[in-house]
């Protein structure tokens, strides 16, 4: 009986933690040949997204759109191997772009 209660508690605990465990997996977006790859990513609330540049030139990862920067993040990635991470705690749709090459755009959906 007591053993059964323990299993039950453990199951409840795991269920409670499940969304957070999933969120921790995050996502990686490569920047290569002046493109965000992939351009669209879907993650859970609390996930961390990391951008890694493979290009030998400075790019930025800037939140919003060229005509409407929202100020959430604006990272300069100096060249090949440079990284930037951001944790998305709230559900929603977040757009981003490169401020130096404004055709480079992407979108993150946080569930």
């Amino acid at each position, binding site marked *: 009986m007591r053993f059964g209660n323990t299993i039950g508690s453990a199951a409840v605990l795991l269920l409670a933690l499940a969304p957070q465990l999933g969120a921790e997996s995050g996502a990686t977006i490569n920047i290569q*040949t*002046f*493109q965000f790859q992939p351009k669209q990513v879907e993650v859970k609330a609390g996930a961390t997204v990391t951008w890694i540049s493979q290009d030998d030139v400075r790019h930025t990862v800037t939140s919003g759109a060229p005509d409407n920067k929202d100020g959430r993040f604006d990272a300069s990635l100096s060249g090949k191997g440079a990284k930037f991470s951001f944790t998305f705690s709230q559900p929603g749709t977040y757009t981003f772009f490169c401020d130096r090459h404004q*055709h480079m755009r992407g979108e993150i959906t946080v569930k």
Partner: protein
Amino acid sequence: METKSHKLTGAVALGFLLTTACAPMASKAEAESDHKTIMQSSGKAADLRSGLNILFAEHVSLAASATGAALGGRDAEFKAAAGALDANSVAISKAVGSVYGADAEAAFLPLWRKHIGFVVDYTVGIATKDKAKQTKAVNELVGYTDDLGAFLSSANPNLPKATVAELVKGHILTLKDVIDAQAVKDYNKTYMLLRTATGHMHMIADPLADAIVKQFPDRYAGM
């Protein structure tokens, strides 16, 4: 028919660009040997090279037509030349896309158009005698060479960024010379410099073609 012709032209032009970019990496003898091998063994590689050459030579010719018309105040001619120049930009992008895919094509076109915008800025600076605008445009063009070098280097490891940037810088400077001559209506100088600027494009198209063939030998092996 027209589409097929453009594709072929694009492929040939792209091959030419790669060849020139690779040259500085190997000894002159090696480069000449590679070049002969490519030209003799593969019709597809030769098509790529000549197609790229045609596209890049056309780019310079149309750019000079546009700047000449703009400086001469011939608006209708300028618009027509600018339209043709943009069609050439699209064709060059399609050539890039034929090798590296639709995403690369979509990324290349705005990057390529960007330098044309800077050339327009420089020409406006000349026409209005605005030295600050001229200097800003030249600085932006020189900075742009790094971007194009990085793009092609990222797409093809056989194309060193610095080499591409230097070759593109040569394109920008030779075209600038043409614009400067157009501005003072020195027509003899304009057309002699236009020959130089057009000739320089071989130095971009050839290495680009060679680098593509080196990157995808199977694709360009056949006749």
